[in-house]
Structures are given as structure tokens and as C-alpha cells.
């Protein structure tokens, strides 16, 4: 969640920069410089934080005997079932922000799709590795 908030803040910052660039060009503007910018920044930040919280709450996963079950999405909600025997490979990755918070992201792939089928963000590295072992490791068959 923190990492998502961080992303939102970055987005807000990007909006600020864009806004500043745009205002430099505009000649006539009723509001004093920066008011709109700050407003947009705040909107982004708040919606980003709230969105991050909602996203965090919506993101659930469960490991069942036969399937991996994942819930995600805030406005459009998806419940996805991946048969465990169909999992082709599993990725664990972490970006710089994730690393700063000691988090990793686990992605599950099946055959014939280019994008990951299920993405589970914000796992601790040990949890992620445990999960990976249960999905594709030697433990798979008696999990």
C-alpha cells in the first residue's frame, strides 16, 4: 500500500511539472500561478492514497487445493481462478520503490498469454518464495 501511495505521489509530482510547463506558455490566466497546479496535485495525491487503500483491500489471493484464487480491481472487480496444474512459470520481481519497503511482486503465468495472469504485489520476500515453492517447486504435488 505504501508503495502504491508512493506511486500516487510520483504521479502528482509529474502533474505538477506538466502543469508548470503548461502555465509558462499560457499568457492570460485568471488564477494566480500554481493554484490550479496545487489543486490538481492534491486531487491526485488524495485519490492516489484512497485508491491505494481501496486497491489494497480489494487485492486478495487464496491458495486452494486445486486452484489459485485471486480477487482484484476496485471499480471493475475480477475474481480469477487459475488451475494449479496450468501454471507454466512464476516470476518474483521488485522495483526500486518495492525494495525500499522490502516488498516483492509475484506474477503467475500460464501458456499462451503474454502478460501475467495473476499478479500479487506487496509480498515479503520470504512469503513470496514460500508461495513460489508451493506453486511450482518440489512441494507442488503435496501442497
Amino acid at each position: 500500500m505504501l508503495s502504491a501511495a508512493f506511486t500516487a505521489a510520483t504521479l502528482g509530482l509529474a502533474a505538477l511539472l506538466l502543469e508548470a510547463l503548461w502555465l509558462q506558455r499560457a499568457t492570460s490566466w485568471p488564477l494566480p500561478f500554481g493554484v490550479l497546479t496545487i489543486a490538481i496535485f492534491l486531487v491526485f495525491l488524495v485519490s492516489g492514497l484512497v485508491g491505494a487503500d481501496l486497491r489494497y483491500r480489494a487485492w486478495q489471493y487464496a491458495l486452494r487445493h486445486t486452484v489459485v484464487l485471486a480477487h482484484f480491481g476496485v471499480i471493475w472487480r475480477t475474481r480469477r481462478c487459475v488451475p494449479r496444474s496450468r501454471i507454466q512459470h512464476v516470476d518474483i520481481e521488485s522495483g526500486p520503490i518495492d525494495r525500499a519497503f522490502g516488498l516483492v511482486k509475484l506474477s503467475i503465468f500460464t501458456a499462451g498469454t503474454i502478460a501475467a495472469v495473476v499478479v500479487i504485489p506487496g509480498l515479503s520476500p520470504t512469503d513470496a518464495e514460500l508461495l513460489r515453492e508451493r506453486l511450482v517447486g518440489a512441494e507442488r504435488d503435496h501442497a
Partner: protein
Amino acid sequence: MPDSSPPEERPAETGTPRPHVDSAQTGDGAVMRRLHPATILIEVLRRIGSFAYIVLIALLADFLGERRGSDWTEVAILGVLVLGAAGAVLRYVSVRFGIGNQRLVIRSGILNRQVRTIPLDRIQNIDLRRGILHRALRVVDVSIETAAGGRAEAELSALSEAEAERLKAELLETRQQAAGTSPEAEAHKTPTEADEGEVIWRASLSDLLLAGATENRAGVIVAGLAGLWYTFGAALQGRFAEQFQRTYESWLGAGGRGTAFLIIAGITLLIVAGWLVSIVLAVVRYYGFVLRRRGNDLRRRYGLFTQFETVLPLGRIQLLRIQAPWPRRLLRCCSVYVETAASVLEAEGGGSAALSPLVRWRRLPALCREVFPELDLEQVKWNSVSRLTIRRGMIRYTVAGLIVLGLASLYLHGYALWGLPVVFILARGAAYARFRALGYAEQGQFVLARAGVWTRRIWVVPHSKVQFVSVSQSPFQRRLKLANLEVQTAGSRVIKEARVIDLPAAEAEALQDALADRANAYGAWQPEGV
């Protein structure tokens, strides 16, 4: 389109083993063979062809801009020609291929050498293609696909007809022997016409005319015109706008009264033209369509000018799609497509291959049984979706209708009010038709989904090919406790495949769990496994 950079520089994709340089010297015990010398000619023309559009634009720009004699155009054309010829010769000289040790080995490149090794059991499709020039020279392009990427892993262009047939036979038979699926001792026979297998379906000319007549490609024409306008519009405007204006006014009078007439005439013309175009396209593309079955492969051959020949291993078929636009349904006909794990033939729309461009309903169950023997299409019991979908459809169509009406009221003013009841009645009717169209069914080891008011589509997915199942809800659906169920296979990359819209949420989730469970029971996804 086959990319024509001679050394195939892109790295081996996932699934295709990395080039192994040692095997280049030994050739894996394979006898390395060359392409047909006609390659040079074909390759040159292909290279020129890929530049033709640019050259044409350059020439036209010259002509329209009336600044003739710019030498750069000629220099550029000459350069393209020379480079093209050189590349073509290099390609012919450098490419060698052979089969050995259960692998197909292709060597290419002179400076940047590449050796591509494809295990025979990974081959998903073998496509043979011959254009007009190929047919005159009696040669064939062969492309070989694995499940890896978006395009063919190996393109052998061009081989002599005999060589191509031999290669196809070798690839298939070695593969079938390895898989142990074909016990027939036909490995050493030379492939002849009789050997091509039993004919399952053959298109008559009237079938094709009907197939074309029941679809309309007005959209293609609009896109084409838009493309032309985008390219030459600015130049044409200067020259012809005045003249056009004069003709227009002399025909219809100076006022705007003729505009409505012109719009209606234009639309009619577009529809008729689209209809004719689709008839011609259907005949040209599918002329002489023959579907055969031999062992565990389906083989198609079709095409009037450019001939295609495809081998689709049955076990690799991921799903079956039956499709019928409304006029086709009236005539009790439909078309049948299959999707394989490799994205075959992008030209055919979303990686699916037509099994039959037009088949009568009474022949349909038999045709489907050729693909999925356990499927009994006549016995399918359809479950309808939630009736609440009528309410959703109603809202959606009413909003759309009101927008159209709002636009129309700019011209019709107060009279537009009369349109309100029409909009409501039409929306109600359309929503009900949508409800009737939607549905799903389960039969044995298959799940079926159905949708489409105008173009009816039925998807048949065997449990063994299901990759994952999603249930999704929009905010509106959540309020009505409805959900969409989507079954994904390794087949196409089309998002909208095998989808059941507006199921009651609880039913959708139960079905989802059951499907995922059953798919899981089939074990790991085998490219060849049925």
C-alpha cells in the same frame, strides 16, 4: 508480412531453443539443403513490393506538387532496387535447412550467422503459401510455427513444390512417429494426392458466393478511403475541390437541400459496394476450399490467386468458434473457426483458422465432431443468463438511442419527439433479443458460450484446454448481483473470447470453481494433449 531482413537477427523466442553453433558444423547429422533459385526473383520482388508504397507516394507527390525532376526520387528508387537485389542473392546463398535428430535446423546469415533449431515435436502448424508468381515458377513458401511467438518461427521461401511436399511429409511423419500417434506405416510413401487424406468438407462456388453475400465489408471501404484521403487528401483538395464544388452545385442546386440526398445516396452506395467487395473477397480468398483429415491432422487448401495450404494438428486446437451474422442465420448457415496455440495466420482475424467459410446447419454437428469427437451439438442444452440483463440492455440501448435522437433533433427540431416511443420500443426489443442470444451450456468435457444479437457466436472450449477462468463485475453489475464469466485458453489473444455475460454472480462463481477444478484435473497443459 514476412520480414525480409536476410540474417534473422531477432533472438530465439521462448520455446524455441537457442541457436546452437556447434550443430551448424555437423548439421545435426542432417543433410543440409538449399532453397530454390527462384528465391532470388521472388525475394527481389518482395523487397521492392515493401517499398512500393513509399515509392508510389514519392512519385505522386512529385506529380501533384508539379515539381518534376527531383533527382532524389530516382536515386532512392535505384538504391532500393540494388539493395533489394543484393539482399535477395545473399539470402539465397546463405540459407540452408535440414532435418536430423528429431530437429529441424535452419542456418542463415553471412555476417551475422544464425542457426535455429526447432524440435519437431514443438511444431504447431505448417503453412504452405503460393502467390501467383510462385505458381508460375512452381515454388512454395513454407512457414513453420511453434507455440512461441506471434509469428512463424521459420520461413523457408521459396522451395520447389516437390521439395515442399517432401519437407511437409518429413516433418509430419517424424513428428507423428515420435508422438506415437500414427501407427500407419506410411512414413516412406511419397506423398501423393490420394495420400492427402479423407475429404471432410469442400466449398462449392455457390457456398462461397453465399458466404460473401452474407457479410458486408463497407467498413473496409471506409477505412481504405480514409487512408487514401489521409495520404493524398491535401494534394487532391487543391486540384479538384473547385471542380467538385461546381459539379455538385450543377447537380443539386446551390442550396444545402441536396445534402441529405447525397448522404443517403452515399450510404447506399457504400453498402452495395461493401457487399460486392465481400463477395469478391470471399471467392478470391477461399476459392476451392478443401478440408481434409489425415491421421490426427486437419489439412486445408484454398485460394484463387495466392494458394494456402495449412496443416492443423487436431490435438493443438484450443477452441472452436461458430459464427453467423444475421443474414447467414436466416439462410441457416454459419462459418466455423478453430484456434490453435500458435497464432496462425493473422490475416484470418485474431489467430483463428477457418474450418469452413460457410456450412449448412445440418452439416455442422458432423463437422464439429471431426474436431471434438465427443461433442454432440444437437444435444446441447442451453442455460439462459439472468433476466436482469434485459434491464441492463434496455438502459444501454435507450441511452444510445437518445443520443442519436438528440443529434437528429438538430435537423428535425420538434419532430424528434415522435422518435421517443420508437427509441423505447426498439431498445426493449433489442434488449430482449440480447437476453435470448446470451447463454452457456455444459456438455461432457466441454463448456459452451453463446452471444451476439447481430453476429451470433458460439464458443466450444474443452475443459482440457482451459488456462484460467475469470469472473468480473462492473459497478452496475455489482448492484444487480450479476457477473461476466470468461474462459481463457492458450488459443487466441483476443480478449473477448468465450465469455458469458450477465450471469447471476453466485452462479458465475460456482461455474468458475467447477471449471477451474476440472481443468486442473487434466494436469499440465500439453501442447499435443487432448
